[in-house]
C-alpha cells in the first residue's frame, strides 16, 4: 500500500479512484483496512486537501466531531448529535466528512459474510440477528445507518459541496440498488469539501442507545424548526438517514420481527423532540 498526502483538493481528487481511498481521521477506515473488509492500493491522506473549521453556517469536511460539539455557531441538533456520537477518543479524530461516509455497522457485513450489500444474494441479517437493524427501506439490505450527525444535517436541510457539485444531504444518500450497492451518490473519486448548515429557529437531537453513553443509535431523532415548519431526520432506522414529516409516517414502517420495538422508540422520541422545540 502507498500513502499520498496531496497539497490541495484538486490533487487529491486526481489521486482518488482506481483502488485509491481517501483517509481523513481514519477511525472507520483503519479497522476496515486491517480486517480486509475494504482494500486500497493507495491511501490519499486528506489533511491538506479538505477544509477544516467552522465559519458561520459553513463547516469544512475535515472538522472533527469534537470541534463541532462545542462551537456555539453550530445548531443545537448537530452539536448534540456530535456530542452523543462514539467516545471522546473517536470524536477528537473523526471528521464530519468521514462520518457521513462511514460504512455500516451490520455485523454480518463487518464479519465479511457474503451478504447482499457485499455483492451476494441474500441479507443474512433478515433471517438471522437483526435487533439493531432497519424499520424503513429494508427490502434489500436491512442495515441501519449509524451516523448521528447525518440525521441532524438531514433535519437541518444542510447542503453539501463536493469538488464538482452542490447537493442537499437528502440527495447525498439513496438506498443501495442491485446495480450500485452503496448508500451515497458520490463518485469514487468525489470529495466532500464543505457543508452549509442553515440556522433553524430551534433544533434538538435525541438518541436511544443500549448504553447511556458511547453506543451507536438504536434510534436517533433530530428535529429542526424553521418558522412553523418542523423537519425530522432519523438515524438507526434505515440503510440511510431517514426523513419523516411527523410520527404518522411511522405507520408506513416495515419492521422486521426483531426491530418492531424501534417503531415505538421512534414515535416516543419524535413526540419528545417536537415538544422540545
Amino acid at each position: 500500500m502507498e500513502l499520498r498526502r496531496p497539497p490541495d483538493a484538486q490533487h487529491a481528487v486526481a489521486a482518488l479512484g482506481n483502488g485509491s481511498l481517501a483517509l481523513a481521521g481514519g477511525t472507520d477506515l483503519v479497522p476496515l483496512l486491517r480486517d480486509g473488509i475494504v482494500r486500497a492500493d493507495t491511501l490519499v491522506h486528506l489533511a491538506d486537501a479538505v477544509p477544516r473549521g467552522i465559519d458561520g453556517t459553513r463547516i469544512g469536511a475535515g472538522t472533527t466531531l469534537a470541534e463541532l460539539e462545542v462551537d456555539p455557531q453550530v445548531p443545537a441538533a448537530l452539536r448534540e448529535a456530535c456530542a452523543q456520537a462514539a467516545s471522546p477518543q473517536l470524536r477528537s479524530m473523526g471528521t464530519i466528512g468521514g462520518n457521513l461516509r462511514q460504512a455500516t455497522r451490520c455485523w454480518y457485513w463487518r464479519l465479511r459474510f457474503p451478504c447482499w450489500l457485499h455483492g451476494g444474494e441474500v441479507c443474512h441479517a433478515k433471517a438471522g440477528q437483526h435487533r439493531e437493524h432497519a424499520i424503513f427501506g429494508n427490502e434489500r439490505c436491512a442495515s441501519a445507518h449509524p451516523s448521528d450527525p447525518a440525521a441532524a444535517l438531514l433535519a437541518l436541510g444542510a447542503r453539501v459541496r463536493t469538488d464538482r457539485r452542490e447537493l442537499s444531504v437528502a440527495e447525498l444518500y439513496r438506498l443501495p440498488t442491485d446495480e450500485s450497492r452503496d448508500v451515497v451518490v458520490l463518485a469514487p473519486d468525489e470529495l466532500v469539501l464543505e457543508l452549509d448548515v442553515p440556522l433553524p429557529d430551534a433544533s434538538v437531537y435525541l438518541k436511544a442507545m443500549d448504553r447511556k453513553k458511547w453506543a451507536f443509535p438504536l434510534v436517533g431523532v433530530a428535529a429542526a424548526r424553521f418558522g412553523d415548519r418542523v423537519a425530522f431526520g432519523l438515524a438507526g432506522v434505515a440503510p440511510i438517514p431517514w426523513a419523516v414529516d411527523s410520527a404518522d409516517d411511522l405507520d408506513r414502517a416495515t419492521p422486521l420481527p426483531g426491530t418492531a420495538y424501534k417503531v415505538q422508540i421512534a414515535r416516543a422520541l419524535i413526540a419528545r423532540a417536537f415538544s422540545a422545540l
Partner: protein
Amino acid sequence: MNVRLTVNGEPHEAEVWEGESLLFALRERLGLPGSKNACEQGECGSCSVLLDDRLVCSCLVLAVQADGHDVVTVEGLAEDGRLHRVQEAFAATGAVQCGFCTPGFVVAAADLLEHNADPSDDEIREALSGNLCRCTGYAKIFDAVRLAASQ
C-alpha cells in the same frame, strides 16, 4: 516509510509500513508497551494516548498520521521519577485489578484533569466513556479520579 514524531518529549524516528497503527509503532518499534492492544476497533480505549494534546485511540490512528506530531503515552505521565497524581490515586484506591485497561484510563483521566480541575461525576463519566473495564465495576476508578482531582 520513515516517520518522525515526538513521543513523551523525545524525538523519535521509525521505519513503518503505511498501514500500521500508531499503537503498533509505539509498542513494537519504539519499545513503549504501556499503551495496550485489546480490541483494535476503537471500542475499549486501552490504547488511549494524547496526539497533539487530544485524546485518541492509537489503534485507529496510522503511524503515518502521527508523522511530525506530538504523542504522549502513559509512560510519559510520570515526572522526575514521581508518578502522576492520577497514577498514584489509582494505586491508592485499588482501581486496578487485572490492569489491562489501566493505562488507557490513566491517560484519559489525566487528560480530563488537565482541562477540568474539578469535574462533576457526570463529567468524569463522559470523559471516561470511551474506556472499558471488565474487572473493577468502575466504582474504584471513579474514586481514583475524585481523589486525584482533590489533590
